């Protein structure tokens, strides 16, 4: 089959997994087992096949299996549209994560070009009521899935801004130095803003066109104060104008690093933060599914989905609907839950995997 999925996954010294190899066929993967067995660890390994620090945002050294501490490695055979790639990522103790695609050294951004991985984890249950950081990360993950180059724009912007913030803290007055940094922040910042707006558009369109039992979220990209000026030149002028205020604050007060994603439960007109816990979760699932449908059109295949403990909070009807939508999409969705009964509705439509743990080591048992 074509599409986007892992054909195999091998973990070596990755958290609780000493050595594990899975053979996969593109169907969703339902993973069950007791608390602490190593289910989330397994899908965290899959999340590292995309740019960034993975679904726990862990430091690379935390990923290495203890007590050995020798470093870790994740290898996968990835089917991406009509190509097959061997992807390797690893870190030796105390060094940065490295990537190889088809035996050649590659950047993390390159991972984002061949694959698409999206996730929902329990810590995101509070996404709508906590700070803007989490929502910005959520939006940027979606943006990255539509526009892999977004990663480079974000890195450039953040590096230039850190430099500028240091000048502000040190009360440096050299206007040329500020202008040199602001020029790069404006270039990258305008790209970030445009990419994010395009993503909000993609998500709104996918929600409007899709058939789903999950609620529609009306999305908007917002700023804490005035709207961000449009385009590179205007943004550059705004940074220059903001210098006196920024000097007083010791940091950059305007820019896309302060953007927020607002969501309204469309059917009720209620802001996401004021919705019930269950409704907030449903909105997130709805957006992930919309993102997946959008990618199926835009990229040509739905993304690999990592849905940690997703079944636990859904009633039986919603759960069945979720499974149906995932299967209709044809996405390789990795789902975790404590008991096999949570996945009973999937039947033969999914690969079932049991994870247990003995003396600190996870054991994988695929159901034949």
């Amino acid at each position, binding site marked *: 089959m074509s599409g986007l999925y892992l054909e195999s996954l091998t973990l070596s010294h990755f958290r609780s997994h000493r050595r594990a190899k899975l053979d996969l066929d593109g169907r969703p993967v339902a993973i069950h087992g007791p608390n602490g067995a190593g289910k989330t660890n397994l899908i965290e390994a899959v999340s590292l096949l995309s740019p960034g620090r993975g679904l726990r945002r862990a430091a690379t050294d935390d990923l290495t299996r203890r007590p050995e501490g020798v470093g870790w490695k994740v290898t996968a055979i990835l089917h991406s549209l009509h190509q097959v790639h061997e992807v390797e990522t690893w870190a030796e103790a105390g060094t940065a994560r490295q990537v190889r695609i088809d035996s050649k050294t590659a950047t993390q951004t390159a991972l984002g070009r061949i694959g698409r991985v999206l996730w929902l984890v329990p810590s995101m249950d509070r996404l709508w009521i906590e700070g803007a950081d989490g929502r910005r990360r959520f939006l940027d993950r979606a943006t990255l899935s539509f526009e892999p180059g977004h990663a480079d724009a974000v890195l*450039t912007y953040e590096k*230039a801004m850190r*430099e500028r913030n240091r000048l502000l803290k*040190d009360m440096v007055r*050299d206007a*040329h*130095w500020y*202008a*040199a940094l602001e020029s*790069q922040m404006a270039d990258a910042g305008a790209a970030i803003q445009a990419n994010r707006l395009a993503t909000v558009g993609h998500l709104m369109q996918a929600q409007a066109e899709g058939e789903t039992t999950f609620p529609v979220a009306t999305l908007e990209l917002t700023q804490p104060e005035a709207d961000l000026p449009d385009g590179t030149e205007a943004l550059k002028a705004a940074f220059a104008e903001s210098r006196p205020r920024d000097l007083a604050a010791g940091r950059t007060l305007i820019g896309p690093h302060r953007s927020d994603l607002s969501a309204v439960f469309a059917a009720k007109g209620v802001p996401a933060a004021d919705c019930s816990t269950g409704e907030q979760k449903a909105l997130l699932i709805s957006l992930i599914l919309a993102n997946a449908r959008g990618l199926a059109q835009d990229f040509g295949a739905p993304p690999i989905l990592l849905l940690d403990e997703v079944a636990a909070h859904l009633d039986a009807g919603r759960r069945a609907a979720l499974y149906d939508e995932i299967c209709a999409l044809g996405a390789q969705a990795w789902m975790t839950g404590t008991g096999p009964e949570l996945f009973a509705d999937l039947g033969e439509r999914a690969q079932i995997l049991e994870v247990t743990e003995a003396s600190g080591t996870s054991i994988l048992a695929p159901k034949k």
Partner: protein
Amino acid sequence: MTQGTKDIEALIDLLSRLPGLGPRSARRAVLHLIKKRSLHLIPLAEALTRVGATARECLNCGNIGTTDICDICTSDKRANGQICVVEDVADLWAMERSQQFKGRYHVLGGTLSALDAVGPDELRIPRLIDRIAGENVSEVILALGATIDGQTTAHYIADQLPGVTVTSLAQGVPVGGELDYLDDGTITAALKARRSL
């Protein structure tokens, strides 16, 4: 261990810390030097002593030579109105090997980085601005890295040189201590395809 053995071990250790050498290659080099004492070891020792006494940075451009002002800065032939700004002496040497650039250089010795406490004064940028007037410069060619710090430095310099044409090497060319790894043809092409900032 005798004192003699210790000296040899110390020599191996010193050599093994040089870029491109490790303990294995350092041992081989030292063994070779000792076997070819008059042919290699003595001349090497003398050359090291001489260079140790005379090597210095050119007060004008930052190039490395054995005089206060380097050969390129003293040669009238190189006063064609162009200055090529590089991060490192290794970049200057790479440009020279390609034999395409006929002007003078300015070696910054790094790139602007607030986080690493490298400012304009650490980079001979004021000296560059002085040179524009003093040496009748008409074009400044920036051969700086595509990194954020490299580009910040390029913007910073370009911003302060009104009245002079400021160009930069064709994009996509890895520069910034990396010119060194490019073949001459690539450098030539990058120089030809330079664009205005």
